[in-house]
């Protein structure tokens, strides 16, 4: 907060920041239950911003205003409104969680200001209007990839799903997993549920042990998946759990303990990857912030570069022109793969499958986008 405030004091709150400056909003989970993702994203954006503004050929400097959506859908709507109407930003990056991005997308549509989400994967988000775009794969792709992985690699013929009740992220992923898993000859034997904030999963685990499935699909967030896996292993249930990018947080290891070993999830980025792009990014990030970046930081970093690309190509510094430039981004190389905006404002990327080791992720395989249907 103090940082943001100081920033505004220094530069004043000018309309979109003047001729050689582009004012961009970031609507992120800076506090609340998913705060670690918002913080990660903010750091990714800050790293990219300073690199972009230091480029000699960057005529239009980027200035970011960070707003906190408190990990809450209602607060996300307020934060988005504030960015668009009071600060007068040209475009907004965010949010991380789908439940926060959906209300933000509605505001973007109403106010005709482009929203680029770097990490929200619910399918419906970009369908709202041409003002909403996404630079990561969506839940159809990642649910499909995990279903394909369960069938083809783990040879599971049936699965149980555990859905986070009332959470569009979890519900969307269960729908896409079920569709692809059944299309590839598998059978969903049961769908269990838990509520947001629940700490005790012993009853679901009792049902799991009774059903005895070869794999369990639990596309929730790390703060509930961690305790769930720990309690399941303590009760003697041993089949692998499968999840999606909501698992990606160091807290998964502390909340689950040794039980985390030997489960799988889909992700955008492997912070333990050994290719040159990943290693270079991780090094820069660690040097500046002292921690290893998660997928949210990497995606936010890419989003800031995508935004810079759009600003540089836009005919004028107006939301409408930025929107047109965002929707025509082509062959932009990032740390989480190449970004080419499709006509549906989605990108096509392969899905990384990671195995959870004792205290880090291990690369398992790369599922081609074509196999996720």
């Amino acid at each position, binding site marked *: 907060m103090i940082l943001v405030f100081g920033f505004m004091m220094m530069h004043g709150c000018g309309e979109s920041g003047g001729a050689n400056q582009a004012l961009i909003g970031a609507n992120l989970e800076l506090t609340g239950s998913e*705060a670690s993702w918002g913080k990660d994203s903010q750091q990714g954006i800050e790293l990219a911003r300073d690199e972009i503004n230091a480029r000699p050929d960057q005529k239009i400097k980027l200035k970011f205003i960070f707003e906190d959506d408190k990990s809450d859908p209602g607060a996300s709507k307020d934060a988005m409104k504030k960015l668009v109407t009071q600060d007068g930003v040209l475009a907004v990056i965010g949010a991380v969680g789908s439940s926060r991005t959906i209300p933000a997308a509605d505001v973007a549509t109403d106010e005709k200001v482009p929203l680029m989400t770097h990490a929200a994967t619910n399918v419906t988000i970009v369908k709202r209007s041409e003002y909403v775009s996404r630079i990561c794969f969506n839940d159809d792709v990642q649910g499909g990839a995990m279903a394909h992985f369960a069938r083809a690699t783990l040879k599971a013929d049936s699965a149980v799903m555990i859905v986070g009740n009332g959470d569009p992220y979890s519900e969307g992923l269960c729908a896409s997993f079920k569709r692809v898993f059944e299309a590839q000859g598998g059978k969903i034997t049961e769908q269990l549920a838990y509520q947001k904030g629940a700490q005790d999963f012993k*009853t679901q685990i009792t049902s799991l042990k009774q059903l005895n499935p070869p794999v369990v699909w639990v596309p929730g967030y790390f*703060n509930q998946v961690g305790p769930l896996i720990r309690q399941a292993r303590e009760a*003697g249930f041993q089949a692998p759990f499968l999840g999606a990018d909501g698992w990606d947080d160091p807290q998964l290891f502390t909340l689950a*303990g040794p039980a985390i070993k030997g489960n799988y999830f889909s992700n955008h980025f492997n912070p333990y990857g050994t290719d040159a792009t990943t290693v270079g990014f991780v090094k820069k990030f660690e040097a500046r912030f002292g921690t290893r970046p998660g997928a949210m930081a990497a995606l936010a970093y890419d989003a800031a570069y995508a935004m810079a690309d759009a600003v540089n190509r836009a005919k004028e510094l107006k939301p409408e022109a930025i929107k047109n430039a965002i929707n025509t981004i082509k062959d932009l190389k990032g740390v989480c793969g190449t970004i080419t905006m499709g006509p549906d404002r989605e990108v096509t990327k392969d899905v990384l499958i990671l195995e959870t080791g004792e205290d880090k992720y291990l690369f398992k395989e790369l599922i081609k986008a074509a196999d996720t249907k």
Partner: protein
Amino acid sequence: MIDFFTFLLIGLTVGCIYALIAVGYTMVYGIIKLINFAHGEFYMVGAFVGYYVLVLGFGAQIGGRELGLIPLLVATLAAGVATGVLAVIVERLVYRPLRKSGRIVALLAALGVSLFLQNAGQQTVGAKDRPFPNTMTLQRYPRFKLVAGDVKAGEVARRDISVVYSVPLEGGRLTLVENLAQRGNTISAESVEKLDEILRNAAREGVPAAIYAYPAVTVSNKDGIILIALALITLLLYLLVQHSRFGRAMRAVSHDFEAAELMGINVDRVIAGTFFIGAFVAGIGGTLGGGMYYSKLSPLMGLMFGLKAFVAAVIGGIGSIPGALVGGLALGIAEALVYGYVSFLYADAFTFGILILMLLVKPSGLMGKPSSDKL
């Protein structure tokens, strides 16, 4: 039937945690007719005190060696005392000045204290969930010892099979449980290989390792600790209330506040003492329930548990200590059965449905005295 007993046991343990919180609600109500809505926060504070005693006092690390029973006992008692002291301070600063201002004012003040403690918690320790230090590895009983030859690849396991072994860590050890097969699954060659490797390593390191088979219904050591804690506290409360000078004074104040004062009872001290005892028990519940049992701490953890315990106190008859115990256990078991046989999604609706039903049909609760004005 197996399911039924499993759900019953889950409900019993959760019910014990509800009961530990409900006791404080009911004692405070019994004596000054105040629903202390900040009581759930005492449960939260207790969990955090226990956490910091283990981390700062015993050098606990996440994923580190297991600390054992003595540190847990120390942390639990420290949590009880610290929470009790906090409750006495809250009573002195907030409730005592408002005691003559009417019950609605005090009720609103209690809601204020609750919000204050939640937000103060978020400011000081942060909003993130955190696990509780490793006091002991969860072990299930009864269990039957097997020998290595009993686990054969390709056979169908008739019971859950695990190997329990320990690894030495700096300043102690860490017990690990590796699940090899689940009842009804075929034992894989991988599991047998893993078992052999663990046994070989254990023999080389000279650490204990044993293979166990578990029946379908088991009780864990953590369940046991919570059950024993509730039983002990029940006994102590009974002795305190029925057979001590302080207990007699408490009953007198509860019966007739002004008459007790006229008889020379130091009412302020009795009320402070009641707050201390109620919060002491909630603090113990926090460390054992929220900490050891659930291992998930956050400043908002007391909210739902406080509300559920309030429902438990109403079910049992608010103002009645045995009622709070019975109400807590009844609510825990009923909830677990709803989880198990209806749906997880209806459990909260069910709990608060019971509250409404109880207030409509029998507002004095299962064990409370009938009276004309409640709340």
